[in-house]
């Protein structure tokens, strides 16, 4: 046997299972050949290297990454990026005073509110139906795997819509989120070239926790479909193999080599000696002794978990005694909020160019819910303003969506003479189907809007009216009417007037009345509105038409006179007050000095007897924008006497905006101490200024 043979065995053979004869031959050669001896030693050393077992979490981690990646792959239609908007909706629950209260997010049937084309606020009273599972399907909603059919040359938007809060046990969360959700989707669906994509239920679930409250995020990005009701067991995943997880009272702390073990350390600093970093940022201790509760880290979204021990860890800081770090490198799409007070989802790996996120949360652990929607684009970060709402305070999704769409359009379709001419030519193209034509019309409207010149030439306007006259489908008709809003040409009054006079459904007539408000100077529009105000069979249309014909002073007058008109029913008297809220597209009318003592008195009387509580809360929400001091007694009375929690909460928030008035402050302090409902007590406390004032109240109590 020579050196070549030895190399052959080492290269290709199995040195561990040589025959006896071969082994003797090898030994004989190796004894006299230093080089082969070394080679054999090296080979054997490698073969016999001690290999540790794979961490049991590794498979799950890999799988999560793979899923995230395959979701993030994105899809492109026709070689041109298709706009995809993902809607992420999240709900939040207040944290318990001690420990954390995470809402379970177990997978289950998708609960998606059925979407009707209604005015944005129509969902506001959907209190009773909220717990009901609603059907998922709708024609406009397509599986993401299907190509966007109604997007010829990829100019449409695709909106990903996630199922929402299906297992939340908090009816308040369901109610508010569903309301917003419906209004929001209604709004999105007003735009003809939008395709709604339903994100599958259970595909994404994750838990994130912000300071003071737990947020359940659904339609997020984590892969696991497992429920996250058990934060302690999840924390085991966080800790990774070398880290022991110790459950210590309510918190779960990371301990490396038992230094933080309450038993072996025997001190009060359990877990205090391990620095926990998330994305290179320190996790703030959840209690006084420096312990980081691992439950506060959403493990499902952790991209990588590393433990750094020994000297290298000193580069991260010196305040931990045993030189240990549990470093958690989170996924790219998951990061700290700008304020550093919690985590948030970022949209990068989602196949959407824009992600709309919504979260319900309660401030400072109180049960006063606010709902916030905001949009971020993959390319430019923040896209649009946030949209927020509190119970009792109306929100305006239409403006938000409009702004969002405009921003999107501006990113994709720059306005120049040539493209404007091209779109105009498309609008004049009679071969298009109605949907295609509506899409072109909307593009024209958006482009002219961005170009700052919405005035149409007469022939284009006439062509639009002509084409529009052939639309019969009610939904398309509404889209058409809405597309006309903002385009300037007196000719366009004609189809609106016609719709107001002859529209089959109340919705169409309402829409026409609202849109005609923009043309109220035009005699034809005035005539149509006046006609409808007197003759329309529906009282809602009559009122809207009357409202639309008035300028702001007239509207203010209408509100006040209706309130004072005792011949009307209670509902009729209040309705004009809520009308600008319902329209949700005009800026609310500021009543200002019109709210004199008489009006405030009447309002007080009405609110004392007006049912249901929802309406009372909405009236209070509407009135909370008014500055008149005459209203303060009314709010005080509602806060003190109303039997409905939601009304008292709304009253508290109205009073919270006029804390400079002693009466308001006193009423809030009284409510904070003695209201029977903890929700109202906390809301009142929250409105009282700052922590000092809060503690004062508590001490006085």
């Amino acid at each position, binding site marked *: 046997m020579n050196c070549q043979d030895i*190399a052959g065995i*080492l*290269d290709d053979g*199995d*040195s*561990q*299972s*040589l025959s006896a004869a071969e*082994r003797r031959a*090898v030994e004989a050669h*190796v004894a006299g050949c230093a*080089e082969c*001896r*070394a*080679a*054999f*030693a*090296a*080979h*054997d*050393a*490698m*073969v*016999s*290297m*001690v*290999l*540790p*077992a*794979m*961490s049991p979490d*590794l*498979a799950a*981690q*890999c*799988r999560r*990454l*793979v*899923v995230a*990646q*395959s*979701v993030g*792959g994105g899809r492109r239609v026709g070689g041109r990026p298709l706009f995809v908007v993902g809607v992420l909706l999240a709900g939040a629950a207040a944290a318990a005073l001690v420990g954390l209260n995470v809402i379970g997010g177990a997978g289950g049937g998708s609960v998606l509110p059925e979407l009707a084309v209604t005015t944005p606020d129509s969902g506001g009273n959907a209190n009773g139906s909220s717990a009901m599972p609603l059907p998922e399907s709708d024609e406009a909603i397509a*599986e*993401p*795997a299907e190509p966007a059919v109604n997007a010829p040359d990829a100019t449409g938007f695709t909106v990903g819509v996630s199922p929402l809060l299906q297992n939340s046990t908090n009816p308040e969360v369901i109610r508010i989120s569903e309301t917003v959700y419906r209004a929001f989707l209604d709004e999105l669906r007003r735009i003809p070239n939008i395709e709604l994509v339903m*994100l*599958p239920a259970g*595909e994404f679930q994750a838990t994130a926790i912000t300071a003071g409250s737990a947020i359940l995020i659904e339609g997020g990005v984590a*892969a696991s479909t497992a429920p996250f009701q058990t934060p302690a067991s999840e924390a085991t995943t966080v800790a990774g*193999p*070398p880290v022991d997880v110790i459950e210590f009272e309510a918190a779960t702390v990371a301990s490396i080599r038992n230094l933080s073990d309450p038993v072996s350390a025997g001190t009060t600093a359990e877990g205090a000696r391990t620095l926990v970093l998330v994305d290179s940022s320190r996790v703030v201790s959840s209690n006084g002794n420096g312990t980081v509760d691992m439950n506060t880290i959403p493990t499902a979204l952790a991209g*990588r978990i*590393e433990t*750094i*021990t*020994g*000297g*290298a860890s000193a*580069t991260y800081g010196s305040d931990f005694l045993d030189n240990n770090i549990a470093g958690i490198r989170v996924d790219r799409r998951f990061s700290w909020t700008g304020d550093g007070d919690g985590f948030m989802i970022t949209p990068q790996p989602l196949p959407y160019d824009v992600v709309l996120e919504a979260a319900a949360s309660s401030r400072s652990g109180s049960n006063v819910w606010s709902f916030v929607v905001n949009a971020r684009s993959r390319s430019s970060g923040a896209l649009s303003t946030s949209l927020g709402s509190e119970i009792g305070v109306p929100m305006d999704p239409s403006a938000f969506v409009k702004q969002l769409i405009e921003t999107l359009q501006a990113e994709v379709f720059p306005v120049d003479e040539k493209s404007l001419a091209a779109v105009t030519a498309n609008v004049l193209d009679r071969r298009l189907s109605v949907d295609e034509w509506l899409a072109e019309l909307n593009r024209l409207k958006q482009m002219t809007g961005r170009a700052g010149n919405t005035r149409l030439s007469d022939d284009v306007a006439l062509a639009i009216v002509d084409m529009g006259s052939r639309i019969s489908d009610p939904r398309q008709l509404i889209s058409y009417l809405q597309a006309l809003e903002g385009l300037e040409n007196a000719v366009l009054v004609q189809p609106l007037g016609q719709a107001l006079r002859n529209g089959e459904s109340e919705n169409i007539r309402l829409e026409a009345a609202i849109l005609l408000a923009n043309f109220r100077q035009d005699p034809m529009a005035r005539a149509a509105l006046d006609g409808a105000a007197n003759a329309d069979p529906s009282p809602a249309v009559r009122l809207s038409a009357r409202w639309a014909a008035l300028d702001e002073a007239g509207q203010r007058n209408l509100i006040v006179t209706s309130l004072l008109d005792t011949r009307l029913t209670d509902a009729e008297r209040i309705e004009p007050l809520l009308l600008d809220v319902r329209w949700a597209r005009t800026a609310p009318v500021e009543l200002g000095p019109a709210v004199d003592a008489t009006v405030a008195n009447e309002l007080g009387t009405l609110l004392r007897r007006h049912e249901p509580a929802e309406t009372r809360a909405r009236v209070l929400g509407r009135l909370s924008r008014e500055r008149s001091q005459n209203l303060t007694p009314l709010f005080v009375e509602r806060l003190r006497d109303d039997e409905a929690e939601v009304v008292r909460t709304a009253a508290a928030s109205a009073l919270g905006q006029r804390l400079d008035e002693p009466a308001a402050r006193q009423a809030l302090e009284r409510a904070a101490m003695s209201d029977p409902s903890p929700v109202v007590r906390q809301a009142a406390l929250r409105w009282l200024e700052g922590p000092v004032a809060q503690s004062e109240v508590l001490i006085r109590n």
Partner: protein
Amino acid sequence: MADPGPRAFDERIAPQLALLFRAAWRLTGNRADAEDLVQDTCVLACENPKALGEADHPDRWLLRVLYHRFIDGTRRRRRSPVVPRKGEELPLPVADEAGPEDLAMQTEQECALQEACDKLSDTQRALLSLRAEGYGLDEIETITGIGKDVLRARLHRARLSLARYLEQRGNEAATSIRIGSKS
């Protein structure tokens, strides 16, 4: 949304994870980097579901991905290396009736081996690791894309380098010849 990724992962990758992790450990010598490498490999592999699905030997195909990922090594070089203290991170197999002395000896040996391995070039280390995992010339050729002739020469030089590093460390146990150590 029926993702090809998760399914491919469950069917093709999951059974090979232990193997991948062993190989990754050999290459990187510590758990964190090994896990990183395995995770990267999984992601890369799933980016090419077609090749993954069609590979005759998923283990070799995956090792190829892993090998190239390791050689690219961007992440490894970017990060400052984490040097474990002696013996740390190496859970010792509890041998039958192994006394403390044996354990100490084994630890010492492993440290020596790790240190020596760290001195090898990435390619050398990878080749020796693959070889130690039981792959022959043909398979290593497939995995690394290095021709057999070159492979032979490199393997030989890698072994000699490793032996030299081990010797430099002056550890008798590591350089003792254990031919046919099964017996």
